[in-house]
C-alpha cells in the first residue's frame, strides 16, 4: 500500500506563490492602461503599487519554480515544455523589472512618451505572463507536474 505524500513538499511552494503575482501584474497592466485615458490618480498610483508588488512576487515565483524544477523534471514526459515555461517566466520577470525602472525614471521626468512606453512594456510583459501561465497549466494538467497521482483503488486513503 502506498503512502500519501506530505503536502508541504518543496515543489508545492511554486503553485502557492505564482497566482498572486499573476493577478497583481495583470491588474497593474489594466490600471496603467486606463491611466492613459483617465486622469484620476488611483489608476496611475494604484498601477504603480500593483506593479512593484507584482515584480517582487514574480521573482519569488521564479525562485520557487527553480526549486520545483529540480524535482519534477525527472518525472515529466516532455521536459521541453518546462524549459519553455522557465525561459518565458524569466523573460517576463525581466520585462516587468525593466518596466519598474522606467516607471521610477518617469516619476522624475513625467514624459507622456515614457508613460506610454511603460504601458507598452506592461502589455508585452502580460503577453509573456499569459504564455508562462499557459505552459505552467499544461505541465500540471497534461503531465501531472508535481502532482501526486493516487493508486487506482485509492487504498492509501483508507
Amino acid at each position, binding site marked *: 500500500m502506498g503512502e500519501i505524500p506530505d503536502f508541504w513538499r518543496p515543489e508545492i511552494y511554486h503553485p502557492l506563490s505564482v497566482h498572486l503575482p499573476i493577478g497583481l501584474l495583470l491588474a497593474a497592466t489594466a490600471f496603467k492602461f486606463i491611466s492613459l*485615458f483617465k486622469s484620476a490618480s488611483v489608476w496611475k498610483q494604484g498601477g504603480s503599487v500593483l506593479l512593484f508588488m507584482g515584480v517582487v512576487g514574480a521573482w519569488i515565483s521564479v525562485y520557487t519554480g527553480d526549486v520545483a*524544477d*529540480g524535482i519534477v*523534471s*525527472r518525472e*515529466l*514526459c*516532455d*521536459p*521541453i515544455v518546462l*524549459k*519553455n515555461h522557465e*525561459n*518565458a517566466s*524569466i*523573460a517576463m520577470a*525581466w*520585462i516587468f523589472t*525593466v518596466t519598474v525602472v522606467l516607471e521610477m525614471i518617469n516619476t522624475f521626468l513625467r*514624459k*507622456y*512618451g*515614457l508613460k*506610454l*512606453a511603460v504601458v*507598452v*512594456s506592461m502589455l*508585452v510583459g502580460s503577453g*509573456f505572463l499569459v504564455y508562462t501561465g499557459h505552459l505552467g497549466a499544461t505541465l500540471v494538467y497534461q503531465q501531472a507536474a508535481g502532482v501526486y497521482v493516487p493508486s487506482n483503488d485509492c487504498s492509501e486513503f483508507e
Partner: protein
Amino acid sequence: MLGFFCTVNFKVKSYRYLFYLYAFRLTLSQNMVMKIKLKSLVVLFIAFGFAACGGIDVVESGTYSGTIKEIEAAKTEIYVSTEDGKTLELYFTDETSLTKDGQTVDFGMMEEGMAVEVEVVKEGKRLDPISVKIME
C-alpha cells in the same frame, strides 16, 4: 431624434479619439529621443523573445559524444553539447553511472568544457542518462 444624437455623440467621440491619436503622433514626432527609447524597447522585447525560445533538443536513445556546456550541481543536472550541435539536458538519476578511466567518480568531478560520452534512453521526450563517461 435619438439616432441623430447618437450619431453626433459618436462623431464627437470619434473626433476625440482622433485627437488622442494626433496628440500621440505629435508627441512622438516632436521627440526624437523618445523615438529612440521606443526603438530600444522594441529591440529589448525581441531579445527577450529570443531568450524565451532558447531550448533543448531531444534525440533518440543511444550514445553521444560532446562537451559539458553547463552544470547545475544543486539539481545534479548537466547540459551537453553534442558534436552535431544539439543540446541535451540530462538529470542524473539513481541509476546513472558517472565514470572516468573506468572508475566511478563523484558528480563534483565534472567541469564545464569537459569532453564526455553519454548513453541516454528516451522516455517520451525526456532523456534519462544511463551512463556518463568523462573522456579527458
